[in-house]
């Protein structure tokens, strides 16, 4: 794979636009430096560092119970799943058996998070392409999910609910009823999503054949999640390396072959239905029992290295933890999905128009605090 010949393009006499760090469609403080020829993009260079909070370094001075909660601030739309990844890493070191009930609730919460995240993504994709209305329809379902989260976890965005050994508290008595209600609501309303955006001629024109990335390039860039699956890379961690009981549920890994914006869009739309089906399998069969395994008050991991990866709404999140036997990690490294996905952007957007760049960014579904940890 040839990268874009960065040294061939100088800055003198070129028409350069700085998109961001304050720009409506970068969804955060991403800074893209764009070399333009008229409307056509010659080169894109992402610049990072505007929202670096040194979460990895900070974790080295936090206890094994506390460092998990910093990850809610990384990919804030997949907070449960991030927390789960860290909790699983610590449990790997502790070698504890997680109660059945906690595992099932963890999966349900993860899938609800994925649904909420995809709905926000759907809304903001419409918004980025110039259709404002989808945003409100996406928010409608997301809001119902966040209400469930609020009742059970006490928070809407940074849930901090997964602890080493299980979950922090038991679910709210209304949890099952409300979850079933939101599932049927989503199954009815996903038709509205299709009516409003999917079949629209302008939408198809804007996304089909735009921002294509081949299967080989997707693998080379280390892309993961729905973005890679749209290029035909089978990479669902839930299927390949099941964790927390995903091996017991039936679901399909969604694959598309086109590798363009429309492919990425369709992967997420179909994934929503898969998440709904996963939750439907579990919601009536939550086993009774404990919600936490017995752990010591001050957790100390044995000396060694631990690695756990999970599938967030955006792809593969890896947690690499080095322990020296003390009460806090020696070193933490996160392999975040957005970072790898972002750096496929220059390849995808070469030769595209400015409008295409916005479409590509929105279907990559970037969350900037996850890129800059």
């Amino acid at each position, binding site marked *: 794979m040839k990268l874009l010949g960065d040294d061939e393009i100088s800055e003198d006499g070129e028409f350069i636009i700085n998109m961001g760090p304050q720009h409506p469609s970068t969804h955060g403080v991403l800074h893209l430096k764009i070399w333009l020829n008229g409307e056509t993009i010659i080169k894109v260079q992402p610049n990072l560092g505007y929202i670096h909070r040194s979460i990895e370094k900070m974790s080295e001075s936090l206890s094994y119970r506390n460092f998990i909660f910093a990850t809610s601030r990384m990919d804030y739309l997949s907070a449960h799943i991030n927390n789960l990844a860290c909790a699983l890493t610590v449990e790997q070191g502790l070698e504890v058996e997680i109660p059945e009930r906690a595992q099932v609730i963890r999966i349900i919460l993860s899938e609800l998070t994925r649904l909420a995240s995809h709905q926000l993504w759907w809304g903001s994709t419409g918004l980025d392409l110039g259709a404002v209305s989808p945003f409100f*329809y996406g928010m409608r379902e997301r809001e119902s999910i966040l209400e469930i989260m609020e009742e059970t976890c006490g928070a809407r965005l940074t849930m901090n609910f997964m602890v080493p050994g299980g979950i922090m508290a038991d679910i709210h008595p209304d949890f099952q009823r409300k979850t079933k209600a939101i599932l049927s609501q989503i199954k009815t309303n996903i038709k509205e999503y299709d009516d409003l955006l999917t079949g629209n001629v302008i939408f198809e024109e804007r996304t089909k054949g735009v921002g294509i990335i081949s299967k080989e390039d997707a693998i080379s860039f280390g892309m993961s999640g729905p973005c890679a699956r749209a290029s035909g890379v089978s990479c669902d961690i839930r299927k390949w390396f099941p964790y927390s009981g995903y091996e017991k549920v039936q679901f399909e890994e969604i694959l598309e072959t086109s590798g363009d914006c429309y492919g990425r869009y369709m992967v997420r739309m179909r994934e929503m239905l898969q998440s709904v089906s996963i939750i439907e399998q579990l919601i009536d069969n939550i086993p009774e029992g404990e919600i936490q395994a017995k752990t010591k008050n001050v957790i100390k991991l044995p000396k060694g290295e631990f690695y756990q990866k999970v599938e967030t709404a955006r792809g593969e999140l890896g947690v690499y933890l080095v322990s020296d036997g003390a009460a806090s990690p020696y070193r933490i490294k996160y392999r975040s999905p957005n970072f790898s996905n972002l750096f496929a952007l220059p390849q995808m957007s070469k030769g595209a128009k400015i409008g*295409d760049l916005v479409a590509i960014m929105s279907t990559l579904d970037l969350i900037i605090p996850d890129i800059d940890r």
Partner: protein
Amino acid sequence: MNHTILAISLSSIANSMHQSLQALLGDGFALTATEMLIQGLSLIVFLVILCFYLGWMERRVAAFMQIRLGPNRVGPQGTLQIIADTIKLLLKEGLTPNSSDKFLFNLAPMIMVITSFLVVAPLAFSKDFQLWDINIGILYVSAVSSISVIGILMAGWSSNNKYSLLGAMRSGAQLVSYELSIGLSLISIVILTGSLQMSDIINSQSNGWWLFKGHIPVIISFVIFIIASTAEINRAPFDLAEAEQELTAGFHTEYSGMKFAMFLLSEYINLFIASAIAATIFLGGWMPLHLGNFEAFNHVMDFIPGFVWFMGKTMFIIFIIMWFRWTFPRLRVDQLLNLEWKYLLPISMINTIFITIIAIYGWHF
């Protein structure tokens, strides 16, 4: 037909004002000057208030389509919200960027607003109530409305901002292209009527609106007119010159306060004008709806004043254009030009030929 049953009509008010002023000032320059002043002032007041309520209407329509409420606190149903917003805009500082071309930067919003006001002149609001019944009405409208592109280019260039420049260049290409389709669909009615004068076009529809009389070709040119004028007035899905998600705010990125409000004002006036022209030439202007031989129905329709008919039709088309805006995604710049040059323009050219044949053989009703 045309018997105004209400004793007071807009034209009778205008006539009585004219007579009393004539009695007061005599037939001279003073009379002309006073009447021009009154006309100008009432036009400006009318349009500004109209735009307030188009802004309010847009927000309520958007809210209706987006399962939310919209402004509903200030005044009944939020009708005074827009006045509060205007006061805010008036009190804001109108920044002029240091590195901009200051003269052109401040001139651009004025050009936009003045152009918009100028185009209103030949519109017939009611029977015999028209500022200027010029014999080249349609030509005048399409000629003067093209000037607004200069305002946009001027704003984009003088801001000295790359986003603004891109927005201005986009709008230059867009407006020049879509002017053609607008012209051709206007010409189709001119061919059928044989006149460019607004009052002639309206009178030719006394036995039925052109949309119903002219078979499918007129319906096609009506649809093309709506699409092309949506592009002409820079509204979604053709709002590439602003393209908030791509160019932050396009040509008016650097504008604030009242200068920004003037762009907004001209956008809404243009929306009104485009819809009013569509209503005038395709839907019969202030003519009431008549159905064949249903005399009773036709008499009831005649009771409704012409001004109400005109505004009703205009508002209907405005609603359709707003509906576009809140439903469709935005086109890309090359797709926008493809749509015009590959589809709309050839279709309207062929359509014009059909309409000419219809006009020659008198096949329309």
